[in-house]
């Protein structure tokens, strides 16, 4: 085994540039495979975490810009009339789309006691706003802008401080939340709401609640009731499409590995017909020659795997550090899991050995003298 290893290493080192080119060519495909796989995995994980909401939103219809909506107090009365048997909680909100830094964000405000039970905000760092001029920001927005707890932000010309960073379940827009009084003061508007979130009671079909609300004469065709999911469904579909596409592309990259490894091995074997003929001529058996080719292919594939995996990890690390991947305000944690790495290794090694075996079948069917006369 040691003699074989020595022999193969000498052979690989003798043709360094060729070996390096083969390794780099393969490593590029392997790195692409890992990066695409990581991306696909991140999207799949994110979609898995998406929860089905029991929330409904009631908002004025026939508006070009939803920010212009005004909630009629009668709508709240209609919802309250269904409490508690059909509706467990209601939460009127106000919102604006505004530019903060380089991002257009949705600024939201609601009674602070509703943030967790109805809007499902989960604090990741810092604290909920306790003072005037404090806000909490979504984790995607914080990551993409390198904001942290205590970072000052300018919203609508006023200075605020980030008191906390939250995560909201499912797929949401990049958003900043503030107490409702702060919101009214900031935009200098009368104390009114724009929409109301309605939470269907446990055990009640939200579809029934939606219908009952929609049929209430107090809404009188001026307001429409939506599932909260409707609001984010487009985003979820977009991400599902991207996830499917990533899956396909990572399979294409895997096929790239298949052909890359196979071609590298086959070409190397076919080009060495004369050398294989010499080995057979001096008495090496077909099995031993195949063993040498296997060893060479495996070493080359392992090198390419090491380089490809390292490059993918480096890319992911630098990408996460410099500019984290955030799609529609949701951060995606790219990761190459040990399972992914192990699967990749099995694929790469298996294909290298298979490619070597297949390419030698044609070679071994030729008489030694024909191999010796090949260039």
């Amino acid at each position, binding site marked *: 085994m*040691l*003699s074989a290893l*020595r*022999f193969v290493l*000498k*052979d690989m*080192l*003798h*043709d360094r540039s060729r070996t390096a080119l083969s390794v780099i060519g393969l490593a590029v495909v392997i790195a692409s495979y890992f990066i695409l796989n990581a991306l696909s995995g991140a999207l799949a994980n994110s979609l898995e975490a998406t929860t089905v909401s029991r929330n409904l939103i009631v908002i004025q219809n026939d508006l070009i810009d939803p920010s212009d909506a005004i909630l009629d107090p009668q709508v709240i009365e209609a919802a309250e009339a269904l409490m508690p048997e059909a509706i467990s909680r209601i939460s009127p909100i106000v919102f604006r789309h505004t530019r903060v830094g380089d991002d257009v964000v949705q600024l939201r405000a609601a009674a602070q006691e509703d943030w967790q039970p109805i809007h499902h905000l989960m604090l990741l760092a810092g604290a909920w706003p306790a003072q005037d001029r404090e806000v909490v920001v979504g984790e995607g927005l914080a990551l993409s802008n390198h904001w942290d707890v205590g970072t000052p932000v300018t919203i609508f010309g006023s200075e605020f401080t980030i008191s906390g960073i939250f995560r909201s379940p499912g797929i949401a827009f990049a958003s900043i939340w503030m107490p409702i009084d702060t919101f009214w003061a900031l935009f200098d508007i009368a104390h009114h709401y724009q929409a109301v979130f309605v939470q269907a009671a446990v055990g009640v079909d939200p579809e029934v609640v939606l219908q009952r609300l929609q049929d209430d004469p107090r809404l009188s065709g001026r307001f429409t009731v939506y599932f909260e999911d409707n609001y984010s469904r487009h985003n979820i579909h977009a991400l599902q499409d991207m996830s499917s596409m990533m899956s396909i592309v990572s399979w294409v990259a895997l096929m790239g590995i298949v052909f890359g490894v196979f071609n590298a091995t086959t070409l190397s074997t076919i080009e060495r017909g*004369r*050398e294989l*003929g*010499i*080995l*057979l*001529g*001096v*008495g*090496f*058996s*077909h099995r*031993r020659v195949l063993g040498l080719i296997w060893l060479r292919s495996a070493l080359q594939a392992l090198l390419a795997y090491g380089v490809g995996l390292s490059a993918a990890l480096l890319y992911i690390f630098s990408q996460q550090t410099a500019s984290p991947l955030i799609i529609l305000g949701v951060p995606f944690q790219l990761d190459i899991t040990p399972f992914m790495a192990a699967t990749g290794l099995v694929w790469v090694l298996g294909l290298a050995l298979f490619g070597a075996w297949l390419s030698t079948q044609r070679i071994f069917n030729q*008489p*030694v*003298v024909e191999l*010796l006369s090949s260039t």
Partner: protein
Amino acid sequence: MLIIAEELTKYYDRGSEKIAALHEVNLQIPAGAFVFIVGPSGGGKSTLLHLLGGMDRPSAGKLAVNGFAIDTASDDELTRFRRQHIGFVFQFFNLLSSLNALDNVALPLLARRERHKTAQKQAAELLEQVGLGSRLRHKPAALSGGEQQRVAIARAIIGKPSLVLADEPTGDLDAANAEAVMQLMLELNRSLGITFIVATHNEALTRFGDRLYELQAGKLRGR
């Protein structure tokens, strides 16, 4: 007899045509002989050597070397036969460019699963014997044609074969190197008792041999 060939025939397919490279060759060569086969290029010399060395199979006829029937042997049996009985010297040396002289000479011993150290020691001794003691670590590209052929001869005899087949071993060498290579083979034939069969179109070299055959258009005749 070391070699017995009866009605040995080899055809090659060229499209729909069959070309007879060897036609019903009969040959008997005793052990320890130094034999020359001469003839024009394309006359069948190389084909005969390849058949004798178990690198190709005859189309018809019988061929036995050292009692081993080449015409009926399997691939594995031919490999074992070459490993144990045959040394080959080619016109263009056929050395592995990635290995130095020492490693090239040691190859047949590694094929026999000899220990690396033992193989290297024997290879060094042989290279010393053929006058390349100072060139052990040189790769083929750094050796002259004559030196490369001496490396090839050392590789051919390291496994102590009963038969060495040399196909135009001086074809790529100048006159002085050709003479030196022939002298070396003759010495090895005399000192080790190895049978040598040398194919050449250079009749001037045949004075070194004790038997001479001529192959023309696939037909062999003694001279």
